[in-house]
């Protein structure tokens, strides 16, 4: 177990290094020149050359990557003399568009995304699993068929549609709900939840629909298994058969998908954040890509990859706990 964990953690680090190399070489070989972009009116070749030197773009790609990687551990300063831009460690790049280290931007944006993802996750898991169970137990009934129709609709509606519908009608036109603005959980938990609820609902509609169908399918399959018949033959009450023997087996495969979906959202709920104008990682990513803010893009890409890789590891470890057939080695 200990050795397995060490091996996996080494793998995580290697994977991140590899991803950083690939994204770095991709982003810094695109046919845009950040020095040109950051050059305002009255741009001359001399100014561009100076900016390139300041950003380090005049160096070979390998040297550029080396400097970037070094800055992660020891920090970095751009330029000399009076016009120095400092980027203290851990420096994952410096956004010249916004004149600030990307680490600070990510630090501000991440709590927003975490709040959105965590709340939505809880909501969609609760709804998806309970509705899925109800549907499976009433298979073929009018209730089941209505729920399945609703989940199909929920799954098919894109989040920009549900998001904009809620925003335009429920919030702006009919004013049933105040306009959501991000506020910190630590300041006022109630206000935090109240502000985030519309975003949670938008994401939960999408994911709950998927998880309802997953839970229903797994539950139906499990309830037809021989060991469920054994549980009944033991004389167990039906609720024990369903909620202990059935659910235990039906939910196990859902852990994997749930972990990866949560990790995916932690990289930024791009559309939902943009619709409600929340400054999370998703909104930061969009801004960075429209402005060709390459250091920023690099940082958010790495962060998103980091969440997926870590989630994979956590899911694998969790699986060893919940599935006795899985042995870590």
């Amino acid at each position, binding site marked *: 177990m200990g050795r397995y964990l060490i091996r996996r953690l080494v793998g995580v680090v290697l994977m991140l290094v590899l991803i950083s190399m690939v994204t770095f070489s991709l982003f810094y070989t695109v046919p845009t020149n950040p020095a040109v972009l950051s050059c305002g009116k009255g741009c001359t070749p001399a100014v561009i050359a100076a900016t390139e030197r300041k950003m380090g773009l005049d160096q070979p790609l390998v040297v550029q990557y080396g400097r970037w990687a070094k800055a992660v551990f020891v920090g970095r300063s751009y330029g000399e003399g009076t016009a120095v831009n400092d980027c203290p460690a851990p420096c994952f790049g410096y956004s010249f568009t916004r004149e600030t280290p990307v680490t600070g931007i990510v630090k501000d944006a991440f709590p927003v995304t975490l709040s959105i993802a965590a709340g939505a996750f809880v909501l969609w898991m609760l709804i998806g699993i309970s509705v899925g169970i109800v549907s499976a137990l009433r298979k073929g009934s009018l209730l089941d068929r209505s729920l399945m129709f609703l989940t199909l609709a929920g799954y098919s509606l894109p989040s920009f549609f549900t998001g904009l519908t809620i925003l335009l009608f429920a919030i702006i036109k009919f004013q049933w709900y105040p306009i959501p603005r991000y506020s910190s959980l630590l300041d006022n938990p109630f206000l935090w939840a109240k502000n985030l609820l519309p975003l949670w609902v938008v994401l939960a509609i999408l994911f709950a629909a998927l998880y309802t169908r997953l839970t229903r399918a797994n539950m139906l399959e499990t309830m037809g298994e021989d*060991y469920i018949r*054994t549980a009944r033959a033991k*004389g167990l009450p039906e609720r024990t058969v369903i909620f202990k023997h059935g659910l235990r087996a039906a939910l196990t495969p859902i852990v994997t998908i749930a972990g990866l979906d949560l990790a995916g959202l932690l990289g930024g709920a791009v559309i939902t954040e943009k619709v409600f104008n929340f400054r999370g990682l998703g909104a930061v990513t969009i801004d960075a890509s429209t402005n060709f803010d390459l250091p920023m893009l690099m940082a958010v890409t790495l962060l998103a990859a980091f969440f997926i890789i870590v989630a994979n590891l956590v899911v694998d470890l969790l699986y060893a706990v919940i599935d006795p057939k899985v042995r870590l080695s």
Partner: protein
Amino acid sequence: MSAVIEEAVTPPSPAPRAFLDVRDLRVHFPTDDGLVKSVDGISFQLDRNQTLGIVGESGSGKSVTSQAILGLHKGTTARIEGEIWLDGEELVHADADDVRRLRGSKMAMIFQDPLSALHPYFKVGAQISEAFQVHHPDASRQERRDRAIEMLRRVGIPNPDKRYDDYAHQFSGGMRQRAMIAMALVNDPSLLIADEPTTALDVTVQAQIIDLMVDLQEEFGSAIIIITHDLGVVAEIADDVLVMYGGRAAEYGPADEVFYRPEHPYAWGLLGSVTRLDRVREERLRPIPGTPPSLISVPSGCSFHPRCPYASRVGARCRTDRPDLEETTADHLVACHLPPADRATIFRDEIAPTL
């Protein structure tokens, strides 16, 4: 309250003669394709310390019969008619929760494939102690564990206190079936139904499991129903044999009668299809021609007539009239239109020499 309901719905009928008395049991499943008549009028009796073997091909209604006795079809779409009397209690019309309380305590079941019948995510020992707990809610955690370990020991699992914490996939096939038997016997059931208990096991283990069941029957005095298509197993332990075909009884009687003086052509076919290694290769395996009938559209008359090599000797009756289960000799019942004298002659002259 429950006593009132029972009185109201239990039909009047003569008192049961035996410990288990199944009377004209019918289990029909409505499906999109039509009504599946899995069991269509089965009757038998079984006393404590006795063993009944139910034999027949796949789809002849053996397993459905046993699951109906356990009340496993309650709450499903299955239509169940007839009566099942267990120790003076009628089960078909009884409240589902009352039958559930009997299930696992007074009557228990061993299933065919112990790997799929054991839960993959719970410890084997925990599954056994759960079976004990549900009928002994006051037992402490330690008592439950001790009881489960004791049962594992009794069915011959070495180091039972260590194996308690193992999962089903860590057991071998024979060990798993022993664990299933331990689970079934944990509440000292007086009726044990074994649904093909040895089919998924290899031959050496089969014999051990059969021996174990015989030993445990001597110890507990339970009534056993063993469902199988392995005639060797039936010959070894059954007192009575019920041959099922297409959801009905073809032949029913004491094991010696059915084995040494079988009268139904289907029973002859079953006996003839036993693999015999002492014959030349072409003669070793003699299957019954044709396939078991569809339970949605059972053949008219005698449901075996399309496959019966002797139907021509009777004529149209086999296709039009369903034969009743009639006594030929004492306690030996056969559902066949062939005259009893002909059946005896055919068996003596044509069948017995080939067995």
